[in-house]
Structures are given as C-alpha cells and as structure tokens.
C-alpha cells in the first residue's frame, strides 16, 4: 500500500509551509511536494494607492528583508517618474542593501542553519537551534549575532530604524549619512570581516563531513538568474538581469520592461506560491535558481580581493567546470557574499559622493508603467507597477526570490526524500531524516512571507501519504 509522509510545519525558515511525501506500494518515495500555506494579497490591496506609498507599503511584506522591497519598489517608482536619481542616493541605497544582505545572510547561516552543521542533523531537536549553538559554540554564535546586528545597524543609521525604514522613495532617498555614522560603521568592519572569514574556514572543514548531504541536497543542473554588472561583476542593485544555463553560459540578458517575455509564472492548485519558469524552455523544464548560489554562478568575478579569492576556491572545490550545482552550497555562497558585502561596504564608506546632500529628484508621473529590480538576499526581486495618469496603482505584479526557487525547492525535497526514505522505514522515518528534508529547504533560505506576499515564524509539518491518499505518518512542530 502506498503512503504519504507529511512534515507540517517546516521549521527554522521564514514563513509557514508543509512538506508532503507520497510513497508507492513498496514504501519508496514516489513524489514530494513543498506547500506554502500562506496567503497575503498585497498585489490586490495596493491597487488604488499612490505609487509614492509603495516602498513603505510593500516593505511591510517582510520583516527580514524589507529593504529589498523598499529598493525594488523605489526603483519601480523612479521608472514611473522617469528620473535618474542623484548619485549619492544611488550609493546610499547600495550601502543599505549591502547591510541587508549581510544581516539576512548572517541570520540564515548562524541562527537558522548552523545548528544543523555544527550540532549535527541527527542531534536532538530540542538543542538543534541557535540556543543550543550558543551553549556549545559560544564564540561563533556571538560572532554571528553581532554580524547580523552590524548589518541591521547600517540599515538603522541610514533609515532611522532597523525594520521597515521609510527611507527610499521614488526619486532617491529621504536622508543622508554623516561622518559620525560613517565612522561608526567603519569601526565595526574589521571585526565583522573576521567573523565572516572564521565562518568560511569552519564551513570548509565541514565539506568532507557533509559530502553525502551536499551530493543530494538539491544537486542537479538548472538555469541560474541574477543581476550582474555590465562587466560581469557580482551585483546586487543595478546592472543587467542575466540568465545562464547549467554550464554557466549566458542564455540572455533580460530587459526589465520585458521580463514577462522571458519569465512565465505557473500556478498549482496545492500551493499559494507561484512557479516562475524560463519561458523559452517551458514549464516545468525552465526551472531556474536565484539567490547567492545563482549570483556566484552568473558573475565572472566579485571585484574585491578577499571575496574574489574565496570565489575562485568555491568554484574549484565544489564546482564542476566552474559551476556549482548543489543547493547545499547556497550556505557556502552566502558566506562568500557576506564577505563581499563587507568589503564593498568598506569601499563605499570611502566614497566622497556619500556625503552629498542632494538626495532626491523631484518629478511628476511621467510614465504609467514601471519595473524595479534588486537582488534581495534570497535572489532577484521584481516589482512591476502600472499606474493611472495621477499615479494611483492600477496593477501590481511582484516576483519574489523564493517563488523563483519554487521548482528547485520541490525538486530538492523529492531528491532528499528519495535518498533518505526507504521502504524498510515502513513510513516510520527517523526524525533526523525528516530534518534533512527541512534542511534542504533551509539551504534556499526561503522567505515565504515574501513569496506569498504570513506573519510569524516558520513551523514544519511533514506528512506521508499512501497510494490511497491516507496519511500514514505525520510530524509536526
């Protein structure tokens, strides 16, 4: 008799989800699905509101990465105003986004995923969390928490608050930065870089230990997409949106206004999360990944010395012909990006443009359509607005990083389930195996609040169903 395993809720991720594993008559995994169980409705209730409100309104989609929405939305607003924003505003926006990438990646690695690596996938769930990490690896946990705080502090110094700063606006930013704030950031950079480097060293020592996990946690060829600089450099705010194939060869550069020609969005009845795909290859073959792994696969270089050295080692150690296909290495990529972000922050702090007081360009509604893109910590974020002649939103489409990884996350869950769940388990799957399935999802650092445009934290629910659709095994926390 075939069976189903249900993991509900999935824990240590941002949002609410469950995983269903379908077993066949022999008890082998037939299929697995990752369901996002939240519904938000931002795209609908923003209709009728002025475009100028969108950065702060859409930032409320998420408490972890509000800055990503703030920036993508402000850029869509810039597009509607048809303005080129002051150079200082552009650089300050970059600085805030780097602060955001550092804090969000630190959260994902140290708070959410490090307990799996450092305490073990099979360690007791009661200790397998950031508190367990604090008691066994105090210095590392403290360093990670301080690193996140550093990123948050940058956001606060620029925008006045750590979460949901109403700071970026169509046309620029609302306030600049003074020498005191710049010095405050500069003082904490060396410590932050040291923490990132220690984490990288530690992670590399674990590569052997978790060789098996790395080979089956979402290890498959796929397309990758991210913003990239015009010279091919790692990018997070501007540049061109590039799709590369599984060998790292450029397939196309996507024009912001014509993204819908290249990216399709499929819908499945069992999930509130849409399935973006690369249109020329159809659904579901046009599966692509976004986020840290994608950005490091798409770019030719990072442009700062420490991160570039790490990128070369990353490609040699875990890549095949320079392309890294295992989703497990999202963690590795995240750590390299923390380092890249910190180095770039250092460069920006020395930039005299940062002290300019010309921060906001004024303009009326000059276009009725605007697209804004930025690299959120989890991947490319697209805000697309249509407005009436007075600037009231008539249509909104948000394509979120986690959504774009949806196909890959489902495939990852299936791959891990097929590897770890055996007929011999008779649906009594050990907790450590289920945790590995969750960890496969955690590698993507999904933000479900964003991608379904819920409140709260992410609990896990895994269910195992037999061939008749009966739940034979369920794990909840």
């Amino acid at each position, binding site marked *: 008799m075939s069976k189903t395993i249900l993991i509900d809720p999935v824990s240590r991720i941002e949002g609410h989800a469950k995983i269903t594993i379908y077993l066949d008559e022999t008890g082998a995994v037939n299929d697995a699905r990752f369901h996002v169980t939240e519904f938000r409705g931002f795209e609908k209730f923003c209709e*009728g509101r*002025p475009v100028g*409100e969108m950065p702060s*309104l859409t930032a409320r989609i998420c408490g972890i990465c509000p800055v990503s929405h703030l920036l993508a939305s402000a850029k869509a607003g810039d597009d509607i105003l048809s303005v080129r924003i002051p150079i200082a505003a552009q650089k300050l926006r970059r600085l805030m986004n780097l602060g955001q990438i550092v804090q969000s990646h630190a959260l994902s690695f140290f708070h959410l995923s490090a307990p799996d690596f450092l305490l073990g996938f099979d360690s007791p769930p009661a200790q397998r969390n950031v508190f367990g990490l604090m008691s066994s690896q105090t210095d590392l946990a403290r360093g990670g928490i301080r690193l996140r705080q550093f990123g948050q502090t940058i956001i606060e110094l620029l925008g006045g608050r750590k979460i949901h700063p*109403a700071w970026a606006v169509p046309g620029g930013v609302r306030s600049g930065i003074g020498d005191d704030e710049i010095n405050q950031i500069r003082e904490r950079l060396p410590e932050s870089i040291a923490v990132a480097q220690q984490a990288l060293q530690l992670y590399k020592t674990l590569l052997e230990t978790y060789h098996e996990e790395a080979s089956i946690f979402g290890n498959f060829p796929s397309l990758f997409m991210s913003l990239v600089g015009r010279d091919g450099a790692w990018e997070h705010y501007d540049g061109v949106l590039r799709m590369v194939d599984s060998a790292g060869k450029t397939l196309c550069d996507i024009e912001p206004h014509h993204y819908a020609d290249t990216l399709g969005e499929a819908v499945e009845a069992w999930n509130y999360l849409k399935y973006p795909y690369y249109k020329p290859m159809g659904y579901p073959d046009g599966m692509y990944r976004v986020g840290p792994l994608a950005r490091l696969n798409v770019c030719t270089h990072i442009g700062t010395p420490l991160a570039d050295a790490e990128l070369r080692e990353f490609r040699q150690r875990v890549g095949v012909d320079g392309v890294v296909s295992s989703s497990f290495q999202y963690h590795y990529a995240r750590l390299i990006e923390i380092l890249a972000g910190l180095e770039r922050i250092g460069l920006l702090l020395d930039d005299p443009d940062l002290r300019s007081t010309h921060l906001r360009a*004024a303009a009326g509604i000059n276009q009725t359509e605007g697209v804004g893109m930025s690299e959120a910590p989890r991947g490319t974020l697209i805000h697309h607005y249509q407005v009436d002649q007075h600037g009231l939103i008539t249509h909104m489409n948000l394509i979120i990083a986690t959504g774009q990884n949806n196909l890959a996350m489902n495939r990852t869950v299936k791959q891990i389930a097929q590897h770890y769940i055996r007929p011999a388990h008779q649906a009594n799957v050990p907790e450590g195996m289920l945790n590995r399935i969750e960890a496969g999802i955690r590698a993507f650092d999904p933000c479900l609040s964003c991608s379904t445009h819920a409140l709260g934290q992410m609990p896990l629910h895994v269910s195992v169903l037999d061939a008749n659709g009966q739940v034979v095994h369920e794990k909840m926390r």
Partner: protein
Amino acid sequence: MSKTLTLNGQMISAREGESILDAARDAGVSIPTLCHMNGVGDVGACRMCLVELAGSGKLVPACTTKISEGMEVNSDTPQLREYRRMLVELIFSERNHVCAVCVANGNCELQDLAIHVGMDHVRYDYLYPAENVDVSHPMFGMDHNRCILCTRCVRTCDEIEGAHVWDITARGIKSHTITGLAEPWGEVNTCTSCGKCVMACPTGAIFKLGATVAEMEKDREKLAFLKNARERREWV
C-alpha cells in the same frame, strides 16, 4: 466683563462670551479636542471636548458652549474619559486608518489622541469602507480612508482663504468631504492651491503629493497667525 465659574472644583474667571474650552485653556486646564483649531470657528463636530454641566442631564461640547456666571463644569470624570475613548475608537472603526504606512505618522492629532485616551484596542467592528484617494490636484492629495470629517478643511478654506472649495455631502455614516460640486479636486477651478487645508487637516487625509510615510509635518498655528494678523491689520 469678567464672569466667575467653577471648573473641576476650582473657581476660575473668564471673559463674557468666551467658550468653556477657551476659558479652561486660559486657566491652564486641557480639554481634548479634534475638530477645534485656532483661527477658525467651532462647530462641535467631533464631541471630544464634551463636558458635564451641574444641573444639566446632558453633556455639552466645550468648544461651542459659552460660559455663564456661576456655571459648574466638570471636564475630567471617569464617564467623560470613557466616552472620549469610545469616540476615538468609533473614528478608527469608521475608516481605514493604518498609522504604520501613513504620511502623518508621528504628526497626527488622531494618533496623539488615541494615545492620550489610552486606546489599546478598538471594541467595535471595523467597517473597512471602500474609499477613494483623489490625487487629481497637481500639488495635493486627499485620501478619504483617513478623513475623520472634522470639517477643519471646510472652515479653513471658507473662513481664511475665502474660496470655499471644500464641503460635506450626505448625512450620518454616508457623510463625505467633497471638493467643488463633488468634482475631482484637480478640476475645481475655485481652488487657489494655497495649501491651507493641507495644514489644517489633523490626520494624513490631505497631504502634499509625493509625501511618504511620516513626512507630513504641519504648522497649524500659521493659520491662526494669518487670520489674526489680517483682522488686526498687523502688516498695514
């Protein structure tokens, strides 16, 4: 001529013809208000300044009730505090007030009042009416979601600017502020675009176009200054 009355058990003196509100403020006693604004006439629309009069079974608004000799007024009793809180809650439940994303966040008289009366939740069901945002004017916008029908804009435009662009249509729960003859604001040719209504508005309902969260700071005393300076011919 001076009159003597009792306010909250204290004897105070006030000028003849003065309102209870003005007399209380002169005596250093604060009574909460929302629709009252220095520089324009009072209408008693918001009922926030309701006070108790000895010998009278009903509550009266302090802004529109004149003082009289020997009057005994109570402006701060548990019952009044409860009523004021209910009034603020009713205002919140009637439209769609979302402070977190409002242009007036931090500079809003309704928000200040909610804090003052200790509103920690709203006991009434929210009505969630479908309201429009009028951004047809080249400089200013009107978000009916945030309008509390205080009529400050109506009185300011009429009494200070003399243009009378603003008015109220319909009755009761259906009341709405309108511009011109219920036309889009940008099409009303009597509007002088002076911006006084923007300054008068106690919430984020009337705002400068392009203003984002918490950016609307208003200097309402300027309106009283304009009116007084004109009446007293201070610049002639």
